[in-house]
């Protein structure tokens, strides 16, 4: 496992010389690791032996296990529980000044799930979230791949282009979203002024459901391309040049070289960045929230912003409904990750 994956990582890192050693070191490591991990626990003596062998490893992971248990595990359990209650801002326990008010919400079983799932709103949100995710990831990947291919050549000014193209990644996301809001401004934004100069009437970028969808996708693609590009560029640089030379000798066209050398060479990196990018986009709260607040109306609301809206924007704050949306979102992501992993396994990818 180790040798294979670390090689694919070496490709991802675009730093093949150094990482070649690592791959070797790693495969040796897991060899010895298997030996120490070999003695399976069996009975009391086995437990003692396991403790003697593994106590330092367990001690080292203790801080993380504790922290994760307390600040993720416990809230997660509570979140699932809240989704089975009728909790809202009026009946949860809270501290106002020195006065502590006890919780009075009640267990209602699966009522919240029934309510959310039978409401057409859920399917609408889900459909738009899927469209949003697929559109963003596919456009970002295509642009990132195209730009990475262009930058993977030797020419004057390459470093300058690279620097310019990375800029959207360097600026904090919420700042960029505000910058775009300024550009998209209906009356005073530069985009409409430019269109106006060309004799085209103003486009209601953020005030029309369809244009707003277009706008949020544009901004998210703009934010996402640099990461894609840099990761894929690293992958491209780790493909041995001899392969291309050999293909050229055999008379392969540029397209054939791209199709049969570049794409297979980028497989490992692509799988990783597509998975990451899908999860990030699916959960992309700031772009939607800061650019359109889910609007106009609710046309750009994705699942996570909907969950946020239930708990923090609508009045009274409906914590139970928000928790229900949260659990459903998590379930969807888990299913996605499992399906993705299984399909990779089927294709012989070890991950």
């Amino acid at each position: 496992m180790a040798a294979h994956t670390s090689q694919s990582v070496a490709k991802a890192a675009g730093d093949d010389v150094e990482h070649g050693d690592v791959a070797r070191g790693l495969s040796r490591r897991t060899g010895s690791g298997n030996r120490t991990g070999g003695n399976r626990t069996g009975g009391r003596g086995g437990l003692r032996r396991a403790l003697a062998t593994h106590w330092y490893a367990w001690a080292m992971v203790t801080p993380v296990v504790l922290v994760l248990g307390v600040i993720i595990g416990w809230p997660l359990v509570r979140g699932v529980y809240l989704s089975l209650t009728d909790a809202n801002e009026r009946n949860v326990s809270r501290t106002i000044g020195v006065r502590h008010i006890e919780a009075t919400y009640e267990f209602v079983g699966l009522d919240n799930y029934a309510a959310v799932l039978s409401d057409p709103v859920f399917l609408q949100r889900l459909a738009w979230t899927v469209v949003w995710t697929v559109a963003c990831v596919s456009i970002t990947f295509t642009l990132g791949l195209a730009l990475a291919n262009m930058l993977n050549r030797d020419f004057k000014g390459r470093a300058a282009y690279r620097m310019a193209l990375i800029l959207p990644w360097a600026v904090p996301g919420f700042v960029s979203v505000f910058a775009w809001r300024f550009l998209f401004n209906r009356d005073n934004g530069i985009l409409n002024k430019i269109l106006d100069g060309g004799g085209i009437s103003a486009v209601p970028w953020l005030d029309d459901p369809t244009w707003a969808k277009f706008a949020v996708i544009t901004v998210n693609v703009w934010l996402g391309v640099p990461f894609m590009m840099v990761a894929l560029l690293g992958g491209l640089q780790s493909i041995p040049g001899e392969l291309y030379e050999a293909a050229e000798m055999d008379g392969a066209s540029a397209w054939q070289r791209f199709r049969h050398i570049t794409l297979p060479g980028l497989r490992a990196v692509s799988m990783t960045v597509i998975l990451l990018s899908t999860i990030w986009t699916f959960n992309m709260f700031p772009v939607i929230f800061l650019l359109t607040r889910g609007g106009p109306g609710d046309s750009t609301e994705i699942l996570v912003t909907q969950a946020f809206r239930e708990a923090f924007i609508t009045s009274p704050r409906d914590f139970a409904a928000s928790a229900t949306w949260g659990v459903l979102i998590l379930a969807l992501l888990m299913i996605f990750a499992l399906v993705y992993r299984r399909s990779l396994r089927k294709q012989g990818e070890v991950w």
Partner: protein
Amino acid sequence: MTTRTRGRRAPLASVGLHATLLVASVVAVFPVLWILLTSLKPAQHAITTDFVKEPTLGNYTYLLESSHFLSWFANSVLVAGVTTVLGVFIAATTGYAVSRFKFPGMKPLMWTLLITQMFPMAILIVPLYNLMGDLGLLNQPVGLIITYLTIAVPFCAWMMKGFFDTIPIEIDESGRVDGLNPFGTFWRLILPLAKPGLAVTGFYAFITAWGEVAYASAFMVGEENLTLAGGLQTFVTQYTSNWGAMSAASVLIAIPAAIFFVFAQRHLVAGMTAGATKG
């Protein structure tokens, strides 16, 4: 490898390459540049299309003197800084342990670390909000720091595992031969070598907390308690749009991050994908 195409590209293809890259670069840079230019315009010209008109630093003086920008900045530095230090500190030994040892419980731990990274904030935000409300930590930096650790700890552990993996196992072995126990090996040999990795991990944790919007918007209210992500929202609301102040604040927020980022980005990608591909 890179010399392969040199001199063989047709002039037309070369022009096409430069044209495409130029357009892409303009698209990438323009929004940022436009904000920079806007921040230098006096308020009455903020929405004009002139590139520069009567440049002034008025927006910046307004921002620093008449708004809560400095307290937002201090809040953000405090929250993101403490989150980073705690996150790296808590996660370092775990990153090392999963990189070097095979032990019962390792696989579930790795899966947990991976899965928690794809957790939507939607699942944790309500219970955490109620928890903080119970503890009286809403509107307090401490509450936000604890919340951000839910993101930072799993992330730092993954990323540091990736960096520890790049340190040859021979170094550990030599330490063991010299009689160091695993803690000694980690502390005296590996940690000093992993410093660049720790720095990059910390930097990433920092900008993640620096740019977080959802928790900050929900947990912090009251003008002077906000972090930058919340504060910036107050300039442009349904009712007011102070684009001048917004753009000046954007520039002040973006510049330090951007400069640092450009230097660190090569390592950032390496770390991200390294952590992500090793199952």
